[in-house]
């Protein structure tokens, strides 16, 4: 019975020692590299890699547009639509005046001349209407781009935050490491994670600014 206990204790000690050696090896590997691979915990490392692949999907433009350009593009399109609508209104007013003149005209040549003018104005109104339709279509296209971009950037920000949070969790864990062999490596990693926080924050701020820009660009 005593022998069995001793064998069991020895097995447990050996198991713990192997686990510790594996953990130390993970920390050594992590300290010598960068990116998600600089995380010594396999579960977090895997989360980081998986979230980062989504960052690429949404921030690189594979899933949709990532920039709205300038807010002034929307203003120009709106101004263009207003301008074209006003032109058509002016033409319609002109047509009404011509029809009024024609109804009061006494001789045939004047009536014929006014009729030709009205015919030309009708053509201009038709062309103006087509330009209004085009301006509306352009504005709709712009609206779609802006809405699609807001959606994509939103996802991009979510995944960037997720990656940053993985490193924040890893930071908490390395701070809690007590093993004497691991401590120096954990300190190295802690410093690196702390220093790297700004980079993640800048990337998120960039996307937030881009999203604000898009919101301002909504027609």
């Amino acid at each position, binding site marked *: 019975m005593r022998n069995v206990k001793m064998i069991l204790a020895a097995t447990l000690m050996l198991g713990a020692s192997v686990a510790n050696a594996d953990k130390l090896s993970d920390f050594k590997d992590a300290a010598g590299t*960068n990116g998600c691979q600089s995380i010594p915990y396999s579960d977090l490392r895997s989360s980081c890699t998986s979230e980062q692949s989504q960052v690429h999907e949404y921030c690189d*433009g594979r899933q949709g547009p990532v920039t709205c350009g300038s807010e*002034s593009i929307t203003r120009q399109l709106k101004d263009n639509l207003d301008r074209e609508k006003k032109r058509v209104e002016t033409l319609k007013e002109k047509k009404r005046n011509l029809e009024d003149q024609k109804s009061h005209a006494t001789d045939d040549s004047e009536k014929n001349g006014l009729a030709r003018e009205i015919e030309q104005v009708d053509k201009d109104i038709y062309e103006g209407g087509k330009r209004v339709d085009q301006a509306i279509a352009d504005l709709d296209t712009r609206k779609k781009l802006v809405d699609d971009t807001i959606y994509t950037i939103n996802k991009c920000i979510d995944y960037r935050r997720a990656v940053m949070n993985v490193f924040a969790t890893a930071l908490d864990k390395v701070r809690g490491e007590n093993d004497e062999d691991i401590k120096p490596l954990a300190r190295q990693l802690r410093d690196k994670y702390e*220093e*790297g926080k*700004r980079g993640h924050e800048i990337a998120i701020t*960039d996307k937030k600014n881009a999203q604000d820009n898009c919101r301002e660009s909504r027609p």
Partner: protein
Amino acid sequence: MQSNDVRLIEQIHSAFPNEPIESDGAFGKVGTTYPDATPYMKQIAGKSWAQLDREYIVRRSDALGFLATRHLIAVLPVYLRALVEDGVWSPAAGMLMLILTRPVRGKHTGLGRAGFGALVETLTDEQRAAVACVLRAFSEKDPDGSLGKAARAALEDYWKTYLPAGE
């Protein structure tokens, strides 16, 4: 392309040396957690800025917040050139405005005071002038947009000192 854009690109080429980039240390302590550090380093290793895959580098503008100062300067001309050529549609425009804006004291914005200080101290006068000219041209192209306004603010706050005399 407008003639001013052509002049700006020539100015960028003249200011930033066309030398091979040593990728070691590109992402030092500050950049360890940049998830694309390894592929980005592979992209820049041994190439001059003019030889870089412009599309890849511009798409990875998030690297600018993680790069060591020396490497940030080595790739900066790629982003400046994209700003000249693509204007507000450059995917890197917003990031460039963030890192080229001097952070407000007491606020943790952009590269931070120390990071921004290191950047501008390491740039040569010719390089600072190139940055100033690009910011000015960009702000003039987008006077009412938020990006153009950000460029003008960065210029007014810091870079305008380096505009060529008489301009």
